């Protein structure tokens, strides 16, 4: 008990380079009629402040479950998650809602509200957080400028391209000054060129705001382009993790070697991406 409160104290001190996310022995099982399925087994990870942390794995490896546990869209069975000094896994429902307001999230299918304009979508989290109307308008303009969509403020999502929709998603996630941004396969529905520009935007935001980003992906190119650290998830277990350079130059897990082989193959053949 004392040890864990001490840990929380240090995390909340938020010194540069300190840990902003600590995941400790996280477990999650799904009970299906065909038997028990281990989505996560003893997952332990630390993410440092200001880092872009990538989690890569094949489909079904548990990536999505893991990132969704971070804001408890998915409830872990056991283990603990501490984000910015707050033990997420120990929060009551109303405390969790408050904590979620400081954890931005972007999604593969954007999940924008079709009945609201771009402006209205970005204002949404601020309305939920109880911002005064005037400040909302100001903040929305500011953040739309940051993602390069000022001219689309009055458009509806149906009028936007996939890349523009994800920019709205990013603006919405950043509006309420989050501590952390979670990215759930945010570029998987986009073409390679749009993917690159969205990743550039994320890297840019990371630099400008010092925002910590955790992203999951099944694409090596995403990790290569923007991540500082990477963890490899295989059948619910972290099989390898570390700085991207180190992991790429000397992969120790079979999954990572498979990923690297596959991506070099693509590059070597000069596939018209």
């Amino acid at each position, binding site marked *: 008990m004392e040890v864990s409160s001490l840990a929380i104290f240090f995390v909340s001190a938020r010194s540069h380079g300190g840990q902003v996310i600590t995941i400790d022995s996280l477990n999650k099982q799904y009970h299906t009629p065909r038997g028990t399925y281990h989505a996560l087994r003893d997952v332990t990870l630390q993410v440092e402040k200001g880092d872009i942390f990538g989690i890569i794995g094949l489909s079904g490896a548990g990536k999505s479950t893991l990132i969704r546990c971070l*804001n408890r*869209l998915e409830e872990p069975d056991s283990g603990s998650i501490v984000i910015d000094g707050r033990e997420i896994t120990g929060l009551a429902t109303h405390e*969790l*809602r*408050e*904590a*979620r*307001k400081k*954890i931005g*999230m972007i*999604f593969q*299918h954007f*999940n*924008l*509200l*079709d*009945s*609201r304009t771009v402006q209205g979508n970005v204002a*949404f*989290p601020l*309305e*939920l*957080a109880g911002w005064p109307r005037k400040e909302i308008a100001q903040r929305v303009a500011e953040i739309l400028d940051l993602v390069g969509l000022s001219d689309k403020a009055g458009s*509806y999502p*149906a*009028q936007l391209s996939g890349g523009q929709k994800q920019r709205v998603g990013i603006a*919405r996630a950043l509006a*309420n000054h989050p501590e952390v941004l*979670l990215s759930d396969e945010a570029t998987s529905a986009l073409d390679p060129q749009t993917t690159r520009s969205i990743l550039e935007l994320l890297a840019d935001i990371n630099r400008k705001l010092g925002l910590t980003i955790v992203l999951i992906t099944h694409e090596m190119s995403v990790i290569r382009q923007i991540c500082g650290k990477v963890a490899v998830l295989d059948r619910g277990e972290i099989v390898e993790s570390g700085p991207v350079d180190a992991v790429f130059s000397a992969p120790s897990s079979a999954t990572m070697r498979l990923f690297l082989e596959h991506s070099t193959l693509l590059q070597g053949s000069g596939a018209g991406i």
Partner: protein
Amino acid sequence: MNEDLIPMLLTGFGETLYMVVLSTVAAVLLGLPLGVLVVISSTGHVMESPRLNRVLGVVINITRSFPFIIMIVLLLPLSRFLVGTTLGATAAAVPLSIAAAPFLARIIENSLKEVDRGKVEAALAMGATPLQIVRKVLIPEALSSLVLGLTLAVITITGFTATAGAIGAGGLGSLAIRYGYMRYREDVMFATVLILVVFVQGVQWSGDKLARRINRNQHRLG
């Protein structure tokens, strides 16, 4: 044509309109919360409660099973208690709204269920409460479909008022039965049916137009 026909029809239409509006408002007040609760209490939704969901489902199904004429008779004591009489348009609005509410609840349930799960999830991730999700996500996102459902309900209620007219509610249905059917006044019969046809067309046309307008904003391209 008889000179008493026009005022009679006007009064009848007025009564029908009054019953339809009053019953629709009351049916929405009862049916909207019911429909919303059925959706959000379903498995995996924002207020998951299998027991509440089952109970509501059974209540809705039972209420919907009653033939409307039986419903009126059963609810006579309630009409007398709430309105003070069992005759007239206001008294008829009691069984009308209670019969229409579960029907409307199902229509609302179907509309709200169509809202993409991902939108609800995104709102949850932003710290929205279940009530905020209902007010700011489910209802606005389903609005065009809700308008069409409400249009359907208004037309069904209009049909119900004719049945209610058979046992003392007044309105056009009552005119058609008392004069057109019982006294062989074909002009009355023809005129009431004509008015109802025009009315129903008008309601459907307005509903469609409104729903299209809502939809156009959301799905306009380029």
